[in-house]
């Protein structure tokens, strides 16, 4: 295995631990991994709420709780843009029956936004 391949594996393991509930790789401070998990999830939630204020508004106080439940089982995949990530959360909410599907949608630079 080359150095690059070894590093690729280590970086993938760390991201899995931080984003997808993976095991903490040996040698890392577990408290710091937990703190970083929260930071990453909070940032992703903030971006999602920024790009889809409609979701934040409709869910109110439940936005954070539902997003956090979603995030760990749906880590953002490479190549998924922020607005696609936010929209995927919106679709997940509809699929789970947390939100009603919009009757029609209009295009906005930030993604599909339910018409009001």
């Amino acid at each position: 295995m080359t150095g690059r391949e070894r590093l690729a594996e280590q970086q993938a393991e760390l991201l899995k631990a931080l984003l997808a509930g993976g095991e903490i790789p040996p040698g890392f401070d577990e408290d710091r991994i937990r703190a970083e998990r929260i930071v990453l999830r909070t940032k992703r939630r903030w971006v999602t709420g920024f790009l889809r204020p409609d979701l934040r508004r409709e869910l109110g106080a439940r936005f954070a709780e539902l997003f956090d439940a979603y995030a760990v089982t749906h880590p953002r995949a490479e190549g998924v843009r922020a607005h696609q990530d936010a929209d995927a959360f919106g679709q997940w909410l509809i699929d789970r029956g947390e939100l009603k599907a919009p009757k029609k949608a209009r295009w906005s630079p930030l993604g599909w936004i339910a018409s009001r």
Partner: protein
Amino acid sequence: MVVAGDAVAEVPGPLGVGIGWREEIDLSIARLPGVDWVEVVAENLHTEHLPETLLALAERGIPVLPHGVSLSLGSAEPVDTRRVEHLAEVTGALGAPMASDHVCFVRAGGLDSGHLLPLPRTREALDVLVDNVKLTQSIVGVPFALENIAALLEWPDAELTEAQFLRELTERTGCLLIVDVANLYANARNLGVDPAAFLDEIPLERLAYVHVAGGIERDGLYHDTHAHPVLPEVLELLGELRSRVDPPGVLLERDDDYPTDTELAGELAAIRAVVTR
């Protein structure tokens, strides 16, 4: 060592005091006193429709420097050259004399963290970063700078200090450095980095400019939020840096919970007071 024939980026001319351009505060930035230049997150721009308020600044002769946040140059997986090409396009469209990103990785194993994560400070990781930076430099076509990040965690088995890592990086690639003194403060608080030793050991002759930002302590950790006022301790670190070198530029970053124009102007003035001696 830089091999003969490699381009060693020239340190830019004086920039002065600037602020991170964000759409939410574009009108404030246009009227704030004491904004000599701005830096803009390259990923937020599309060259076909650059924001009018940003173009208006450029037309006033205010330098607009692009700053990447997603190149993930410390990733062991191949560089996403489309992202580098986008940075090059934005740099060209802005007529910017340099471009930059961070010493970090963002993506790995098919996942995107959406954040700047620390690298292992090993020879192996440095070799990967150096190769990725050289490829990036060949695409962006202007002097390229890399910034130190704020980290909450460290990889085990470090072989180099952060300062040694940055020195070797600049020596081997000819790149410039952006020193974020708020990130340095965060690393001092959270990881026990000695800021004075860091500033003594990094190649300040390769300094492109300095970042300053606010943050807050939560649960015993300092978070570099860019959403809170700049701490006096961070300005003190700017002073520590200033006692060693006259930085070509200093930039205030604010990304959320935007304060009043008066408060932003006050932070810019405080920065200017530290560097104007």
